[in-house]
């Protein structure tokens, strides 16, 4: 009995500090969010290369601007340059943490701004293997987390964390992320579909640090295991804190976007 008590006394401090895997997962997500907070606004050029199972390739080019919104999802404006038939088309989105996003599409041939349904989170972005939800801002409260293990990937130490979406209309039951211990950015993500089988794997490469703080990848590669299709998304001309504001993200600026 005395032995047992002393064993318990020994274990007590351990039990007090021991985190559940849920808490550890959340802690990693919060730390990642903290390190990326305060970027203000960002813009970049994007080239998307779509490849089907036969190796046929098609290219999309676009430019995007993002505005950080405190306490909610970011605002985004994407302008399409290629293919030529959709040149000038622009997409405005106000993403929200749990509520449906607000989305407007500008159709330059008609000069029409169209509010579109936001239920398409799981739908493909421009016919690519990226879904809208894969490209929207990662906010902590969008998911619940589960820390799985530590595991190095391509020689880089990483946490392996599972996330389950808390928002409606996700195409996934869960994602598993390999998050760099150095940058707290995802190096690899596995997406599991509604039938719980592995749907896609994304790998992020070429992380560079901007303004001495914010890490951004040069490229994201998404492979769909079920269709054997692949999309590579390459970023260039990252710019931060260019003074973008709400006025650059409304229906009027959407009509002027080129």
């Amino acid at each position, binding site marked *: 009995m005395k032995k047992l008590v002393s064993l318990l006394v020994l274990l007590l401090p351990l039990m007090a500090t021991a985190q559940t895997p849920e808490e550890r997962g959340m802690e990693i997500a919060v730390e990642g969010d903290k390190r990326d907070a305060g970027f203000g606004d960002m813009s970049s050029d994007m080239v998307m290369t779509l490849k089907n199972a036969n190796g046929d390739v098609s290219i999309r080019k676009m430019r995007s601007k993002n505005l950080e919104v405190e306490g909610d999802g970011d605002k985004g404006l994407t302008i399409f340059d290629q293919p030529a038939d959709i040149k000038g088309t622009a997409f405005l989105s106000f993403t929200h943490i749990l509520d449906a996003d607000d989305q407007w599409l500008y159709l330059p041939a*008609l000069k029409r701004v169209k509010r579109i349904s936001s239920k398409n989170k799981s*739908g493909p972005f421009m016919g690519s293997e990226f879904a809208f939800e894969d490209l929207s801002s990662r906010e902590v409260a969008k998911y619940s987390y589960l820390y799985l293990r530590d595991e190095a990937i391509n020689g880089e130490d990483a946490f392996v964390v599972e996330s389950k979406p808390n928002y409606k209309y996700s195409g996934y039951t869960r994602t598993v992320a390999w998050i760099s211990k150095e940058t707290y950015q995802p190096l690899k993500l596995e997406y599991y579909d509604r039938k719980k089988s592995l749907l896609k794997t994304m790998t992020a490469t070429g992380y560079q640090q901007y303004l001495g703080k914010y890490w951004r990848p040069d490229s994201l590669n998404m492979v769909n295991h079920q269709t054997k299709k692949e999309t590579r998304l390459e970023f260039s001309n990252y710019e931060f804190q260019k003074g973008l504001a709400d006025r650059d993200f409304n229906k009027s600026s959407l009509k*002027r976007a080129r």
Partner: protein
Amino acid sequence: MSIKKTVVCSLLIGSVAFLSPGFANEWSGYVAAEYREFTQPALDQQQFNGGNVSVSAEPEFYHSWNDGDDAFIFSSFFRWDEHDPQRSHVDLRELMWVHAERDWELRLGVGKVFWGVTESQHLVDIVNQSDTVENIDGEDKLGQAMINFSLIKDWGTMEFFVLPGFRERTFPGKDGRIRSIPELDDHTGYESSAEDKHIDYAMRWAQTFDDWDVGVSHFYGTSREPRIIPSLTAQGLVLTPYYDIINQTSLDVQATLDEWLWKFELIHRSGQGETMNALTGGFEYTFVGINESVVDLGVIAEYLYDDRGEGLDVLFEDDIFIGARLAMNDAASSEVLFGVISDIEENTRFYSLEASRRIGASWLLSLEARFITGVSSNEPLTSLRRDDVIQLELARHF
């Protein structure tokens, strides 16, 4: 604007563009070949039968400076048509300077403006004249000269328009198809003694309230939609377009509630005969990712009402539109839109199909078909009862 003037204008702008390499300037646009097949013999002997070839182009130049706060846009449209000289036409779609400040914008020149939310018809959209020789769906518009000042505030966007000069609606010529029988006489009538020089005014307030997008507009000036006046002359029955000075107040609302889009447009017009009201209202429901695929299917239903009732000028006075939109979400952006407008009282059905897909990086193939069935002889659509058409277009975008 004449063809010569437009060409000279484009050459001038082009040379300026190429001489200033330091700016982000660019040409874009398309060249397209179109084939139309009319499946039935024409009602009027003067109209052509069978197939028709046509070629069109729409080059566009865009140049911006001041970090995008100033922009210059030039866009013109050209069409050559095998059978109908009225459809062979040139139009200056845009020639505009846009200037943006923190909470206001100014647009000066010739431009295009779209108002409204519904799919089956565009009641509220009034600033630009319809280029109906292009398409009877009212989505092709002629450029309109304008001074447009917009205030962008927390309480909404308030826009003011001064619209000097009026563009007559385009109609097919006597050889052309999809026209009234008899064809419209070119002795256009105007209420205003200034005729097509009348200065029109418009204003609009638009605001987003969470899931609701709302717009209220008012227009004063020359009606874009003419009254068709029949008269008996020595040559027989003649139809003449007549443009009244009207006041039109309108409301457009869209509620975006997850997969439901609820859409509503209402107009109240006075000055064109008796005061009239018309509305379009309905929904679009989207099935996202049908059968675990990436394909989206949208179902659209709208009610079309016009209190003028049946008449020469009113196509849809008590009709239901049912449509479906299929988006394949593939690399070729394949899309199909099918719809039918059915008269509630009569047997008239107006079917339309639009489909398109990309070929390679810069070609776009589109198919359009329009069919009319069950028209009784007292409806305006009766002139079009033999104008069922299938149209194929191949466009090269650059």
